[in-house]
């Protein structure tokens, strides 16, 4: 059987940084090849090269189903029979399954009219391929997450005039699924490979690699670190492959000067939501606490649910002098708990100026009735710009959207640092921020902690957490499953805890 995908010497350089170096990868027809790697290791760049979104550096070659892929052209891979399913499935929730199936490839029509009956019949067949037995008339919004995923897969696999599907690329599709649901997806993937389609499977979940994959490739910093047969590997050895043997302790700032303040800042009790199953947290003043967890562990929702981005179904937040229900932004702020979202759409307003965004958290300092003191506001904003190194440094009256992502993030954080919160909750603090700015942001957060604030940060980047935090809480299945204290804090230990308790003793 010809290989579904052969990549030879694929490299990609953005500006001066090499993101992928000389990657070779082969996916045999009818097999599953897992692609592993930490955040920023180059997985998604590789996928984007396959799909034609990025043009690789000259010299590499990719063949799909034996035919050469014209690199850097959107749609070329599709024409050769490669299909992509991403974590954002690209389904329209309010449309029916049949309509969603047809969105990519079109409806069967006669005289310009959609042939409903035959179409529904073919939709049922398409769904059967992935083992989904539901009424194709149903709107997608009424399906479970796993079923939606299967619909997206069925859509990718639909027979088209262009020719048979040879390669299916699944990019972290199970990330948001619960364990039980993942099994349905696994079964579907096995059905697909039985038809001779090769699957390139990107995931963070090691158990899935062991259960499903024939081969595994591990990327680290853009290099192919390992390529191995999966049979004979266990979870512990995969963790070692993933983290690498020589985990260097990331440089850590000197320990805070002076005595640590050890008073309670915030205690969360019994926090529950669809993705959280009873979380308790105890946060002390002056410490930086990291929250780690894979996608789907509840980690990405925890801080937002405390503050009220998502509605918790239960849970309380208490601290010195306050006791409130979780999930109410205004009450949280009154209690001195501030929150910076991972999404700039939630943390800032792009059409307001930088100054207006910065001071929105607390206008009392610049409101001297009957006027808002714009001059004073500008001066204060300039001070924060200088403190955080926002560039351009004098553009305080520009709309926020004209700033780069990293600078927007700095302004979002400055809004709350300016209010001197008791607790600062911050999701993905350095998302979209370059390495230098990242160090600056870390300094800011550590500075806030030194002045007595508690900083709680959740990140998908374990190395960042280990470098930044005093202790790291590891979440699994909607609960805090483990705590890594200051002394035993290593990337390897946290990573192994992400994947399950049995491995806790390995490192």
């Amino acid at each position, binding site marked *: 059987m010809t290989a579904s995908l052969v990549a030879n010497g694929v490299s990609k350089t953005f500006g001066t940084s090499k993101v992928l170096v000389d990657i070779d990868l082969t996916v045999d027809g009818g097999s599953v090849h897992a692609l592993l790697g930490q955040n920023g290791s180059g997985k998604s760049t590789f996928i984007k090269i396959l799909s034609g979104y990025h043009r690789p550096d000259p010299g590499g070659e990719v063949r799909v189903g034996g035919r050469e892929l014209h690199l850097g052209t959107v749609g070329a891979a599709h024409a050769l029979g490669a299909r992509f399913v991403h974590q954002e499935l690209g389904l329209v929730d309010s449309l029916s399954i049949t309509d969603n199936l047809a969105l990519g490839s079109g409806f069967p029509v006669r005289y310009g009219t959609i042939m409903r009956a035959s179409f529904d019949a073919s939709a049922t067949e398409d769904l059967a391929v992935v083992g989904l037995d539901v009424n194709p008339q*149903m709107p997608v919004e009424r399906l479970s997450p796993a079923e939606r995923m299967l619909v997206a897969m069925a859509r990718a696999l639909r027979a088209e005039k262009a020719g048979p599907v040879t390669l299916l690329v699944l990019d972290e599709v199970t990330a948001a699924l619960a364990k039980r649901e993942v099994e349905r997806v696994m079964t579907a993937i096995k059905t697909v490979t039985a038809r001779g389609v090769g699957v390139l499977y990107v995931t963070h979940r090691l158990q899935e690699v062991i259960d499903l994959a024939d081969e595994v490739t591990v990327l680290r910093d853009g290099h192919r670190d390992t390529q191995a047969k999966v049979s004979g590997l266990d979870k512990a050895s995969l963790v070692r492959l993933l983290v690498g043997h020589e985990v260097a302790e990331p440089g850590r700032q000197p320990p805070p000067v002076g005595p640590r303040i050890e008073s309670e800042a915030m205690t969360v009790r019994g926090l529950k939501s669809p993705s959280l199953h009873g979380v308790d947290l105890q946060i002390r003043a002056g410490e930086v606490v990291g929250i780690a967890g894979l996608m789907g562990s509840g980690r990405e929702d925890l801080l937002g649910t405390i503050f009220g981005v998502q509605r918790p179904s239960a849970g309380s937040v208490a601290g010195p002098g306050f006791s409130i229900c979780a999930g109410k932004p205004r009450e949280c702020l009154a209690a001195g708990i501030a929150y910076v979202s991972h999404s700039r759409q939630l943390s800032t307003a792009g059409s307001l100026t930088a100054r207006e965004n910065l001071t929105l958290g607390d206008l009392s300092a610049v409101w001297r009735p009957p006027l808002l003191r714009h001059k004073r506001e500008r001066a204060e904003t300039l001070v924060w710009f200088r403190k955080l190194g926002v560039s351009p440094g004098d553009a305080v009256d520009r709309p926020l959207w004209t700033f780069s992502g990293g600078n927007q993030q700095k302004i979002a954080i400055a809004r709350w640092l300016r209010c001197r919160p008791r607790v600062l909750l911050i999701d993905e603090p350095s998302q979209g921020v370059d390495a230098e700015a990242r160090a600056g942001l870390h300094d800011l957060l550590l500075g806030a902690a030194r002045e007595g604030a508690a900083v709680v940060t959740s990140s998908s980047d374990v190395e960042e957490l280990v470098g930044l935090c005093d202790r790291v809480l590891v979440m699994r299945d909607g609960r805090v499953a483990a705590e890594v204290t200051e002394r035993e804090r290593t990337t390897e230990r946290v990573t192994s805890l992400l994947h399950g308790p049995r491995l806790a003793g390995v490192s």
Partner: protein
Amino acid sequence: MRLPRRSLGLDRFSGIYLWALFVLVFGLWEPGTFLTKATLDSISSEQAVGAMLGIVVVLPLAAGVYDLSIGATANLSAIAATWLQDSHHWAVWPATAAAVGCGVVIGATNGFLVVKLKVNAFIATLGMATVVAAVQEIISVSQPLPPTSQAWAHLSGLEIGGIQIVVVYMLVLAAILWWVLEHTPAGRYLRAIGANAESARLAGVNVGGWQWLAFVVAAAVAGIAGVLYASQNGPSTTFGTALLLPAYAAAFLGSTQLRPGRFNIWGTVLAVYVLATGVDGLELATGVAWLNDMFNGVALIVAVAFAVWRQGKTGRVESAPSADSNSDSDVRDRLRQRSVRTMLTLSRRYMYSGQQRKPTTE
């Protein structure tokens, strides 16, 4: 990443240049009739009520919600005020107060529908406009007679230093709302809500409360404007609807002036008067009657299209990496899309409500 400097002004002040051009052209064209105090008086006072409505829709628009009921509210207030004086022999001031009270009640109801029941503002206020029109018909089957008291005529027609008092009201109102929007925390909160309601909520802004207040103030001022219109022109039963779209046109046009990309008060006032000057001049010069609608419509489309094009040139292209802009035009688009989507979703829900989900294989 370079924005037009503040001093350039060709786009920000295009309205003022255009205004000067109109005065010049029509001054040369019809020197005898156009460049007279009579023209100035008629333009300024005839447009004052329209300008008030234009100003007041800026408030809900800045907060990211439409209020399509202000026209109907103004009309109901006008009819209520005259009817109370006519049929119930109320004095001018109590009748006026009652009429404005109508506005407050309508605004509060709008707020309840949008904030508490989460009905899309576009739909809620459109429905409210129709309900208000029906209420108006209930209280007055036919057009009421204009009250004859001196105080009623003076309400809008009193002259202060040669200027009709209705113009003064309009300027005072504009100044107050400008102060609120640009120089108080309330204005900041309203704008934050309009720019991105969810981020405003997460910044601790009471989104529902401020939107509610915007509805109440908009409707109350619309009530005042309606009473003034009736005092000025007599109690028409249809003027409200006719003033609604021009008010929005002025607000949108105003958002391309002085502070482009933001709904703003003085830009709106400017827009109203530039358009009125153009229309009046053309009517004087040509004697054609359909110019008003044609001119207003074309000017609105051209000005907004130009502003969008400018925004595309100065913003999106040059700052491609952070294209997640939330400009007011985006907000408008989103509002429009949202209302359409709501209707689609409602119809889908209805269609599928009978179908039961088959048990899945688990």
